[in-house]
């Protein structure tokens, strides 16, 4: 029997009801599709985390704004170098326990594991830059209209072929 992942295993009762309501109201739509154009061993791979991860030298995500207005989330994004580790970053997502990623960033954004896959020639290379934004944006317009196009420009500049998105 193959594993069937239970989406609700680690959710509290209230969050489970909310997520179920969101799933029920989702409208089917056409699925974009870009086939892999070359072997993974020739691909440049980038990671994107919704953990609200930012370099300590960069502007933190706006937690206070979300505390003031719980319906709002900071729609900006941050760029992370491929060598970033837990020592270099803050983790600002208010819906997760950041302590694990602050011990070892790889449990949320596996940059070191990706570099090891580059060394092992499983992938072509880890991209020069990787990205993070805040999850739980109830009104995603600014995220989608401003942050995502900017991230796409960065990805193109770095000639990224494959993107792995890691929810927090």
């Amino acid at each position, binding site marked *: 029997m193959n*594993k069937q*992942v239970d989406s609700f295993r680690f959710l509290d009762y209230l969050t489970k009801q909310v997520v179920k309501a969101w799933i029920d109201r989702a409208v089917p739509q056409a699925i974009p599709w870009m086939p892999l154009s070359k072997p993974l061993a020739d691909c440049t791979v980038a990671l994107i985390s919704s953990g609200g991860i930012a370099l300590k030298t960069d502007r933190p995500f706006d937690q206070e704004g979300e505390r003031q207005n719980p*319906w709002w989330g900071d729609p900006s994004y941050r760029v992370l170098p491929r060598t970033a580790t837990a020592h270099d970053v803050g983790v600002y997502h208010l819906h997760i326990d950041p302590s694990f990623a602050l011990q070892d960033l*790889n449990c949320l954004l*596996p940059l070191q594991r990706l570099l090891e896959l580059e060394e092992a020639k499983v992938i072509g290379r880890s991209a020069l830059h990787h990205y993070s934004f805040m999850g739980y944006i109830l009104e995603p317009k600014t995220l989608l209209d401003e942050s995502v196009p900017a991230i796409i420009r960065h990805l193109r500049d770095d000639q990224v072929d*494959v993107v792995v998105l890691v929810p*927090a």
Partner: protein
Amino acid sequence: MGLVQREIEAAGMTTIALSNIPDLTASVCVPRLAAIEYPFGRTLGMPNDKEGQMAVLRATLQALVEMDTPGSVQHLPFEWSEPPKKARAHPPEPPPIAQHLRKHPWHLPNLMARNVPK
């Protein structure tokens, strides 16, 4: 996350989400999805569990290589070692929206409908 993935795939890159709420990610019609039953904050595994994190990342990339149909979902076989009550899956303080709903429970239908009060 799924909405962001759709935009990036549409821009010409091959994408996969590694999601621990796969039913929600799949509901926005993403091209590729690897489902994992791990708690929040540790999507790849426990801190310092290099082997475990690597196994998840490798499995995700392998799924991406093998998937040839839009909307493919692969349930990864990994099992979290702790039961949900011991997994410390929640933030140190309740998220602002949860605190708000305690004081304004009549706003719950707004949240369920993603109808943000003005």
